[in-house]
């Protein structure tokens, strides 16, 4: 069987985006599939993050 060098990542929140970036860096083609109109997920709605109060966006 011939394998395909592409991966589908379902979900464009912080996890999905990080996975997609790492896979691309590792030399694979990535389809990032997101159910909403924008990637970012819940993290994009956060103002700051614990504990350093860094900006979430």
């Amino acid at each position, binding site marked *: 069987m011939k*394998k*395909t060098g592409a991966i589908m*990542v*379902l979900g464009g*929140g912080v*996890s999905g985006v990080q*996975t997609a970036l790492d*896979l691309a860096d590792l030399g694979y083609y990535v389809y990032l599939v997101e159910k909403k*109109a924008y990637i970012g997920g819940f993290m994009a709605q956060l*103002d700051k993050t614990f504990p350093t109060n860094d900006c979430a966006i």
Partner: protein
Amino acid sequence: MITNASLQAIEGQPGSFVARVHQEPRYIDEDKCTACGTCTMYCPRPVADFYNERLDVTRAPHIDYAQAIPASYYIDAKACLRVNYETCNLCAQTCTAQAIDFSQKPRDLELEVGAVVLAPGFGRVDNEVLARFGYGRYPDVVTSLEFERLTCASGPTEGHILRPSDQTRPRRIAFLQCVGSRDETCGNGFCSSVCCMYAVKEASVAKEHEPDLDISLFFMDVRTQGKGFDAARKRAQEKYGLRIIRARVPNVDQVDGRLLLTWVTDDGKSHTELFDMVVLSVGLSAPEDARAIAEASGIELNHYNFCKTTHDAPLATTRDGIYVAGAFQGPKDIPESVTQASGVAALASELLAETRGTRSVTVTYPEEDTSLLEEEPRVGVFVCHCGVNIAGVVDVKAVRDYAGTLPGVVLYEDTLYSCSQDALKSIAEKIKENRLNRVVIAACSPRTHEPLFQETLRSIGVNPALFEMANIRDQCAWVHSQEPEAATEKAKDLVRMAVAKARLLEPLAQPTVDVIPKAIVLGGGASGMTAALSIADQGYQTVLVERSDRLGGNLRDLKWTLDGRDAGKILKDLTDRVNSHTGVEVLLGTEFKGMSGYVGNFTSSLEKGGQTELVNHGVLVVATGGRPYLPKSYGYGKSKRVITQLELESRLSKGKNPLRNVRSIVMIQCVGSRGDDMSYCSRLCCSQAVKNALKIKEFKPDVRVYILYRDMRTYGFSEDLYREARKKGVIFLRYTPDRKPEVIRQTRGIKVRVYDRLIGDEIEVPASWVVLSVGIAPAENEETARLIKAPLTQDGFFLEAHAKLRPVEVAVDGVYLCGLAHGPKSLEESISQAKAAAAKATIPLAKGKVAVAPIVSRVDKSLCIGCGICENLCPFNAIRLVKEGKRRKAETITASCKGCGICASHCPALAISMGGFTDSEIMAQIHAFSQRECEERRES
């Protein structure tokens, strides 16, 4: 990137799947949309702004937020008149870019993929559950996510905290923890693992906005078990005067427009108080579409509808070739989600190693336009509003106009969010149009945003070194938030200084170096073995270095995992695979003695039996582990009846009746941890204690088991074990650090004296065994840290480069981190992290080349006197003396140089300069700083 899309089915087999995906139209062409906002302005259909948690309204065509990606608007099809009734069409008529396209139809895509990663995140808790706490009935009861939008500068109130009922400022706010978590009645019996932290954060942010606020937080247990989290929580508590109350979730009523809370503390007393606003710290549910995803992908879910996984393979679903990461695997915070996300990339990469590069696309940059630099400096200044983050304090337009008066400035503009995609696009266009050869952006911190802007320059053929940032957010708007005029003046100063420096900036080369395709992994425990196997499975030779003469580390002493798996079998599987893998070379009884070189080209010296071997390698993974804390208190070592949890496991796993003559067992939590001897929480002892308590009950149900704890931190699905232990009759008694339990040895047996909060008096419990839940102490990390020049935390663990963005990397490029060397964690978490470190370590190996940072030192050999001070001082071994003729001259090893500038600042002959920070550039900045003062003096 495929948005508005849902998964329909996955067919085929690992390595060769077809994923069927259904995509709904955006009705706006992403390539044409310029994100100008005209469509939103003209649309007559208001819709709830879901991005702002329905606290605001927007129109059917909109963008969620300025930085949203894709940077294109979309039309909410449910609300659109044109889509539903074929009327209106106003947006299409007003869109000058002609981006509105109602001819778009839903599409069904077939994606050929080798592997699938599921990362759908988490879902919301039902409003019915929130209604139990007055949500929906009382307007001033809000969810934590709504509160998040209220405190956000880009939110509906521009960061002002106002009560939804009357838009007044609240004086007293209560945070209610565990809403929709740790509650079987709502179906979520688990702990959501993040709410304790975000509540402390939201309370802190609220106090920064409104220092007079009075904030109370109601916890059942304070679960800030993450790395450095306890310390951060304590700091916040002290700094902001947050009031912490331990109680079951209070009851909420409304009285005269205020909210009356009633709660019972663990001494059995009932309390009531009035608040102006209540924030529900809502937990993380399984995704609403979990069942649909499971059906489409053919995977199984657990009893909470999260993805079913095991502790020895936390990122694998029940179907081969389909993996999982993030909150769908179990509720978790951002650092852990990011870690799992990298980890899952390793899994897919292991499966598809042979196809690497067959489908990838390489990004190319246009050649640099060198003719730009032949001209005089043409500086462009962009001043960022950052929404109201900067513009709320600093007069951005005044700063912009001031920039226009500075020498060399040919373009000066202000932008709402310079980091948003459309702003970057417009900045790039303006650089080209105006032939700018120096760019200054006055915005936030170069630490986070410099690379983004430099990438923009690179994309249009401008050398990224021709760029300077002025941090007018942190250094003006934030620190001088109470003095807007002074902040504006300071912003002008910073811009003037940045422009003065920018005029002298020179382009810097972007060298790359080849990578030796080999990895060294330090430490042969569960994490080290997992990382080594993953790198080898991804196709790269790996050397696994273990100091002792056996593989296994702490896993050798563990008997059962938290999900009841045989730890011995996991250990055997790992060691068998490591020993038989042709890509892994195992070096036992071997000490790591030193490392030189730089990412891609390290040389390490490994010593075995007095003999030293040099190994060249491209990357290093540190998995040197930790060790159980050796208790000094509670009579440990003086009586055989006082043992640790691991010793208990060992006793329980021996013989047929390990609990003969045992009638009562008392477990004491936080031995060594949380300010006892070590300042931090060891994270896994609570789960380990309930796991072993259940094991005891399984062997011999009539043994009385007591667990004396400070906060039960059985986060995530371990909460199930905690609840089961309570059901099986395990008795939990909370103690405080000022009233620790006492172990009293008697001639026959032993007893434990402890303060019972419900009775309000001390009680004595006879104990056949006392089991100490000892914390996890760091290994002897100082020596390793010194050899690889990696920093440690105050607690003695390795420090990651960034807790959220780079959780498995250390500050030294090419060095990665996992397992207990990073901090206390469970086997499940260690394995995820080891996979993540393996993925990150494999990236440079797979690329074959690494880019070297352009900011390096440069020696002017005609000035160098060969004194050698720089060579002695360089902390990175990045400068050396070479003979040139009869003279000695210093020379920078560009690839090792970190650009710290120590050499340049100590050179007695001023022969060393730093790229991007030359003496003349810095002097120009300093002169510019004093310039205004001089002028003012002259005028007076």
